[in-house]
């Protein structure tokens, strides 16, 4: 499979979009990341990550859901694509494979 050129933060965003399933848009993604990892991030960072992932084909989006909470403005919902799913699988598999090859010795060292 082709190398999935995906950054660390992008991976995080991609995962969260997958978790949120039908309710993934800028703020929900940001809040989810904050609550799951405790990282403080700016909404603009989330937006550009989402945009990048979409242009790479890992996410799909549609516009909808104007609410009063947004002053009547619509939001852009994101959904993970098959390519996105495969990229996540690939990353996970690769990481696990590498992780499993770590000799015991160095793991001790790391855990110190």
């Amino acid at each position: 499979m082709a190398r999935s050129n995906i950054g660390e933060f992008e991976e995080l965003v991609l995962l969260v979009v997958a978790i949120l399933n039908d309710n993934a848009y800028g703020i929900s993604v940001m809040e989810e990341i904050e609550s799951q990892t405790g990282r403080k991030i700016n909404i603009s960072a989330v937006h550009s990550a989402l945009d990048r992932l979409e242009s790479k084909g890992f996410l799909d989006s549609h516009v909808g859901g104007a609410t009063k909470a947004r002053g009547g403005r619509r939001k852009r919902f994101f959904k993970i694509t098959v390519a996105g799913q495969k990229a996540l699988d690939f990353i996970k598999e690769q990481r696990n494979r590498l992780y499993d090859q770590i000799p015991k010795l160095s793991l001790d060292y790391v855990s110190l």
Partner: protein
Amino acid sequence: MSPYDQEPPQWAIKFLRFYCKPRALEIIEGDAYELFYKRIESEGVKTARKKFSWDVLKFFRFRYIKGLEDINSLNNIVMLKNYIKISFRSLLKQRFYSLINIGGLAIGLAACLLITMYITHELSYDKFHSDSDRIYRLGAWTPARLAIQSKMDIPEIDEATRLQGPFSQTFNIDGKIFKEPMGFNADSTFNKVFSVEFVEGNPSEALSEPNSIVLTQSLSNKLFDYQSALGKVIKVDGELIKVTGVVVDPPKNTHFRYNFIGSYPNETWVTVGNWTGNNFYTYIKLAKGSDPTEVQDKLKELAGKYVGPELVKFTGHASYEDYLAEGGRERNFPMRLMTDLHLYHPRLSLRSGGDINNVYIFSAVALFILIIACINFMNLSTARSAMRSKEVGMRKVLGSLRKQLVNQFLVESMMVSIISMVLALGLAALVLNGFNNLADRSFDYNDLFMGQVLLQLLVLVLIVGLLAGSYPAFVLSGFKPIKALKGEVQKGGKGSSFLRKGLVAFQFAISIFLIISTVVVFKQLNFLSNQKLGFDAEQVLVIKNTNVLENDAELFKNRLSQMPAVERMSMTRDFMSGGVSDWGYQTIEDNPREHSFINMFATDGFLETMGLQLVEGRNFTNELVSDTASILINEAAKKWLGWDEVLGRKLSRGDGEDYTIVGVTNDFNFTSLKRKIEPVIIRVMGNDGRVEADWYAGNYVYLRVSGDYKRTVEMVEELWEETVLDEPFEYAFLDESFAALYKEEERFGKLFTASSGLAVVIACLGLFALAAFTLERRFKEIAVRKVLGASVKSITLMILKNFTQLVAAGAIIAIPVGYFVMEGWLQDFAYQISLNNPMIWILPALFVAMIAWLTVGFLSAKTAMSNPIKALRSE
């Protein structure tokens, strides 16, 4: 209160809407609002608003900023690329026209660039001083007390300082002698008025002690070979002086361009001074926010209070009020902004040599050259338009909008002007030295490639491109596609060819005007140099600084007289061609009259050394003691006196100091011919260089020499070095000194020669291209004429006639304007050439006509002689 009633900061929303891509705007705005409302509840309104703004700022990323494609559509960029490509192709396709276009414009722009640089420089004088808008110069020469008294009496005056200079002084550093110009004396407060940056020494104490001197860095480096100069004691003009400071060299754009500044001696003429002798330049700095007109009024009051009582002691009035009542001149110290001195008061500036008129003249010349170049540009573009009518037609058929065509042609003209700009920069750099000569400045590449100058050039280029390109752009884009494709030549109506002709005539007018100016300037200069001065300035060698000789003067003169090359000599106080001061004398008669005569002092050899003629009476002689009160006058003085018999009559300096006229010399000019001959008195100076026992005035020795000048100068120099220790040998030839008086006018002459040369060259380039184009269009017509029996001569004449009319039209405009302008210029001279010489006017016009005939004639003869078959065969 519901959070939805709150609003985020308006500026942030506006900013977001300004930069954000439309596609992303709603989503970003929505998220930002949602966060804002949430935060109101959790963190309060204030923080929410702050964070909202922060979010918006963080969204300012390349990804979300509107690009070109958002402003209109992606298509525009592609089209722009296409325009540039097409422009290149059409420029390359018609290399000849493009070359003339770009070359001419580059020359024009280069001239403009240099002159922009010059003007920027001239306008920047003295602006670098901090608070330069509050620094004023008082009067021209002012009394010693003015600075101190005005600072004490007028609260608005923050600081005041006095200067004297510039003068040259001789530095003796361990036996090495340097003569350094541009030295000043100043009060210790000078660094509070002017911005001076000290490298070494204490600014506030540098000039507070007598016998102190502050050197500029470059002078210090020269004298002390890059060693620290602070605290060194050096010999300046024979006195021991301590270096108390080294300052950064003043920039080029200051009227006060000192080389070194000495402190004042602790003497009463400085510290106490008086109110009647005007020996100082006074500069004041006003307090922030003070009203200069109010200060001016207070200065007037001050002048009345202190100068008034002193004044009436001389005039004999009871009081200053009486003096004023009897029509006496009210005393004041006019305030002039320091930044105005260089351009608007060149006489007051300390030899910075500026003049607002030069700025105007230079600008006018640059503008003329640029206009000529632009006219070429426009003419060639419109003329070529017909050739591109098919292209325009095709584009229109394929769906081009008129706007797009306009854009295309504008891009093309912008390209031409930008290429020209690059060339112009190179050209300007090449001729920078020559320009320095013309402008009497010392610009270097840093000045030329300064951001401000380049920015101005760029703006100029864009304007030129737009203006020059707009006419062809709008005419061409207006073509009807059907007609254009059918090959019908669309001239854009009669208007276009009329405009073209008018522009060419205007070019000729400018060229003729500039040539006329050149001719007049040179004729006047020639006239001046051939004008009889009344004496023979050739072969007169002047030895300067002989005032240092004092007691050695007689010995030095004796040894000079033994040199075979020295025919005659005379010692004088005054340097002919420089300024000679005037002294007031009274006639001795029933109703005494007073007049300021030009007053010279000389030993008895003066008349013969100078080649002056004695009209009546006799010369005075140094041998007769009784002759000390004898004077010579010139004919102008005799005329002023109005007496039938002047010999033996007396003039008085007052207090029984009477002088008897013993002889009358012919009239002579002692300085520039801008001044008329004035009444002159020549008084006796003793052979020892003394006018009175304690007054040594032998500043110059004049030698009438013969034979090998160079050898003579060397011999005199040897003698000088034997006699004088501390002063380098300086000399001048009198005829050269007189010629140097017209340096400014010569620069003018050069400027006009250069600019009229450029104007003619550019105009001819344009004419050549235009003629070539016209002939190309009339190729078939000429062929038909020829087939029908016209001769080469008649065809050539037919075409020449058209262009001759244009030259004539140009001459009709240029001659009256030239007459008017040059008459104004000549007003400066007491001796002028007559402008009513028709040759001045006809020759330049003929000259331009000749060049036009040559340019056009060559081409038209070539066309007329070509084989008509070639032109007609294609059909």
